[in-house]
């Protein structure tokens, strides 16, 4: 994948301004929320670069997400061409990849399933949640272990 940018968690936070506060159409919703098709990404001002991903019609459908560029696996992500075609991408610069975060109730630390990112076309404002078949991606990785140093 082109346009790889290494982003360390010690550097200035990268907020993809072009993505924020725009309405994205997820035609088939997300698994579990199939009837919700319009979502926005909003920066969490106090805790950059974390982002709030939420339904336009129901604010209770909201999750924390983080740009995949912060993750060690970013350079290894291999998005299938069929998934990229669904997003009608003309240029890899238009591609955005975000991981959904969930709180592990026992450890109270955030985790991410690296196999199930959100992928978006920043230009056409459309997105999907995909499943990556790659064996090298962890299904349940603590954020502290998953991020680049």
């Amino acid at each position: 994948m082109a346009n790889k940018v290494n982003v360390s968690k010690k550097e200035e936070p990268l907020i993809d301004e072009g993505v924020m506060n725009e309405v994205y159409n997820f035609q088939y919703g997300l698994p579990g929320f199939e009837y919700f098709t319009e979502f926005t990404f909003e920066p969490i001002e106090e805790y950059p670069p974390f982002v709030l991903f939420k339904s336009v019609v129901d604010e209770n459908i909201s999750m924390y997400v983080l740009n995949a560029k912060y993750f060690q696996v970013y350079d290894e992500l291999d998005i299938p061409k069929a998934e990229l075609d669904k997003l009608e991408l003309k240029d890899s610069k238009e591609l955005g990849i975000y991981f959904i975060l969930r709180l592990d109730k026992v450890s109270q630390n955030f985790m991410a399933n690296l196999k199930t990112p959100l992928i978006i076309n920043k230009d056409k404002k459309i997105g999907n949640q995909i499943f990556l078949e790659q064996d090298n991606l962890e299904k349940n990785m603590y954020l502290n272990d998953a991020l680049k140093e």
Partner: protein
Amino acid sequence: MLVLTRKPDECIRIGKKIKIKVLESSSSTVKLGIDAPEKIPVHREEIYKKIQRENKESLISEETTKEKLGGIFDSEKDNND
């Protein structure tokens, strides 16, 4: 549930645009080929259910206050300002 019996190389059509073909079958597994419009998501059921469950667990709740995002990045603003 509609139940249909098919042999290898036989197909099922769903509507005008979806075709499912039995490629191989053995005593314990069936290999299927699926022709569907590329925009229609196709998942293995157990994987789809796992993603559904995880997405629901990812919803922000009273327990997942944003303060819990603190301390992960050095760049966060000093909230005492």
